[in-house]
């Protein structure tokens, strides 16, 4: 029996094209091919064991319809970290991504992201994800590690896009509420943000309002108590800006 199972696992990739053809998914569903799945954590901390996922048809929804067409291969256009190499999406990763997006608040699911790319390793390893100036996100291999919460990684990257897609008034209001002020150094002829007063949930938030906001939004969703204690002004600002539905939802349908 064990021999048969091992043989099946080894031959699965070769059987894949046939199994795709074998299962004809009806309208309103999408095909998930059989694949091995590593253990991982859902957004709410639930541990999901490793298993062999069976081939199935899953119901589509707005998240699937919006995001599956923008899962891209290759490097984002004009990607500055030239030494980073593109990687391929696996069936397991696509499925997990859709599940993780389903767990996020609708306000994040509706952002006008241009593409999610897969690359193997960040130049700042073990950094799990990055983004560019033009609405593109990169997920590295480390984003799919067993100890990582993919939904949390996505929430952080999408928070950067939230900040960019805010109105001018929203961004100015956030900077004012938290106390971010731009200063100019005539010696170096550089503008920089003067580090705001108060504590930070993560040290890199000291670099400016955009990273500070991304960190704070991530903590608002995943460790609200920590944010409330550390940076209450950010907690209040996010609470006032978003409605009561701005919280983690149920896992993938």
């Amino acid at each position, binding site marked *: 029996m064990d021999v048969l199972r091992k043989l099946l696992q080894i031959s699965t990739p070769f059987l894949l094209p046939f199994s795709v053809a074998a299962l004809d998914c009806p309208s309103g569903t999408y095909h998930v091919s059989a694949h091995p799945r590593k253990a991982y954590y859902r957004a709410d901390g639930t541990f999901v064991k490793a298993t062999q996922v069976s081939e199935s048809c899953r119901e589509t929804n707005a998240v699937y319809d919006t995001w599956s067409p923008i899962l891209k291969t290759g490097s984002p256009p004009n*990607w*500055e*970290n030239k030494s980073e190499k593109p990687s391929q999406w696996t069936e397991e990763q696509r499925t997990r991504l859709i599940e993780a997006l389903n767990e996020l608040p609708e306000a994040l699911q509706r952002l006008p992201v241009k593409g999610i790319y897969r690359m193997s390793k*960040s130049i*700042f390893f073990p*950094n799990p*994800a*990055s*983004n*560019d*100036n*033009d609405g593109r996100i990169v997920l590295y291999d480390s984003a799919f590690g067993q100890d990582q919460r993919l939904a949390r990684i996505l929430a952080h990257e999408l928070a*950067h896009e939230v900040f*960019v897609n805010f*109105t*001018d*008034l929203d*961004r*100015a*209001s956030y*900077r*004012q509420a938290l106390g971010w*002020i*731009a*200063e*100019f150094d*005539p010696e*170096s*002829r*550089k*503008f*920089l943000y003067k580090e705001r007063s108060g504590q930070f949930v993560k040290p*890199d938030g000291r*670099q*400016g309002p*955009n*990273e500070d906001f*991304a960190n704070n939004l991530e903590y608002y969703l995943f460790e609200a108590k920590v944010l409330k204690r550390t940076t209450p002004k950010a907690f209040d600002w996010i609470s006032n800006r978003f409605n009561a539905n701005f919280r983690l939802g149920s896992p993938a349908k």
Partner: protein
Amino acid sequence: MTRAFVLLTLSLITACASTPSRDRGSRLSFDSINRTFAPDLTQEQVLEKFGPPDSKQKSTANERWQYLAPKTLFDRAQFIFNESKTLIQIVWNPLPGENEMNIEQILKQFPKAYFESSNTTKVSNHSLKSNTTLSGESVSIFREDSTNKVLAVAWFAKNH
């Protein structure tokens, strides 16, 4: 009669209170600052032109006066003076809805100036989103690259 008098008094008080605020709002417009900046302005002259600041911060090397926008209290302008109390720098922030948030609009205001991208700073190690300083001879512009909006404009004395 008494009620009418109270209402009239209240409206007069409100009118008087809001006038300086509106007045200061226009005094701190881009055009006003752009026309005014001169590196040898004294604190007295700044007070005369712009009124008292909302806050003052002193350090060993300089003194910083901060002006806030009426109503929103957004950071509107900072005037920096040297030890001799003469003006060496103004940092001015466009407010939401103002044309000066548009980078093209700002560049048009300096038709003879040449700006170079002197510094691009990533928002963090793991984000390629950036802010760029466009440097001119005595004016620099701070641009948020992902939105292409102007964050601030600085006028500065060349010798400081």
